[in-house]
């Protein structure tokens, strides 16, 4: 098993052991192998959405029905979500678990992610969302810890996966 496949497998195992059943996704090159792995895994219902805000609402509704979920997307998509997160997740205190790519950080060769490099972390900090960065395969178990934190505190949390982990 190559590194990307192994990382994708470990992440899906963390999702499954957390009780996640619904996975809402939008693509990003770095997580496309993970999305493919999830799509093939019958423990999950994979819902590809066409706008990141739809993932916020879908996962929020799933929470109100007692079903675990994760919104998986790229950094740029996450940056479009400030109103949806602060409106639904924060106003109603409905936790959603976000897993995103840490685009624009050192090592990202894509210059068009300069804005994410400059502002992604600061935006997450500005909305006081607990953020965990996972940079190495041995840190992948932090995913389930972050998920449990979101459920224990009814706070949305985000886990950002780095290029070194995913590529």
């Amino acid at each position, binding site marked *: 098993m190559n590194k990307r496949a192994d990382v994708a497998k470990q992440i899906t195992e963390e999702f499954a*052991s957390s009780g996640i059943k619904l996975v809402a996704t939008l693509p990003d090159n770095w997580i496309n192998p993970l999305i493919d792995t999830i799509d093939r895994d019958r423990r999950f219902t994979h819902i590809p959405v066409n706008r990141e805000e739809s993932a*916020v609402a879908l996962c929020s509704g799933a929470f109100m*029905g*007692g079903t675990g979920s994760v919104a998986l997307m790229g950094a740029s998509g996450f940056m479009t979500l400030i109103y*949806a997160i602060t*409106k639904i997740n924060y106003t*109603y205190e409905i936790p959603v678990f976000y897993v995103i790519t840490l685009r624009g950080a050192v090592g990202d060769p894509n210059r068009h992610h300069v804005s994410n490099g400059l502002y992604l972390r600061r935006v997450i900090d500005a909305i006081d969302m607990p953020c965990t960065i996972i940079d190495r395969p041995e840190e992948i178990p932090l995913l389930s810890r972050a998920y449990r934190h979101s459920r*224990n505190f009814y706070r949305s949390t985000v886990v950002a996966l780095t290029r070194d982990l995913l590529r």
Partner: protein
Amino acid sequence: MNYVDCIRFLAKRRTDQLVITSAGNSGQAWWAASRDAEASFYLDASMSLSTMFASGLAFALPEFKIWSFMGDGAFCMNPGMLMVERDMDLPNLTHFLISNRRYGATGNAGLPNQKRNDYAAIARGMGLDRVFSFDSMPALEGGFDTAVLTNAPRYTFVVLEVEPFTDADQKLPHPPFEGPEMKYRFGRHIERITKRNIFGYELKDGHPE
């Protein structure tokens, strides 16, 4: 048809459906018609997300019927939602698009592009086949059972063409719940009717330290 009369009709025909309302007018009208403080979630100012929220709920609770209201102002912000709803094809979800051709929550400001918007045609163009549209009370009364109350094995999309709120309607009270209270009222109701544990997430590692 009159907006509030239309919603009052829906409230009368409702049995045990869970209801998700959208921003502004639909929440006001549903609160006026139902005074439901448990089995309805008033998702205020959600900017096009009420039916996606309802889709998550319907996915989680396949044994329950879900009605979700959305204004056409919200719909125009995110019509791609219909593609996701089509693909999810949840037979327990009915999406009511309340078309008043206004941003009702924003003082009835006119909706851009309103004159040529054909929401039923848009839905059909996206591949939905259970699409219904009603523009009068007699039509709604005559077609409601077929559109909504049959146990169709497919997701249902219903367009309700209504007049904008009047000035008097705009003064209808909003549901008097802050966000967390809304969450707990609705969630505790879900816990009661499903015996599910919505709020008591159980620690995998045992008891809290």
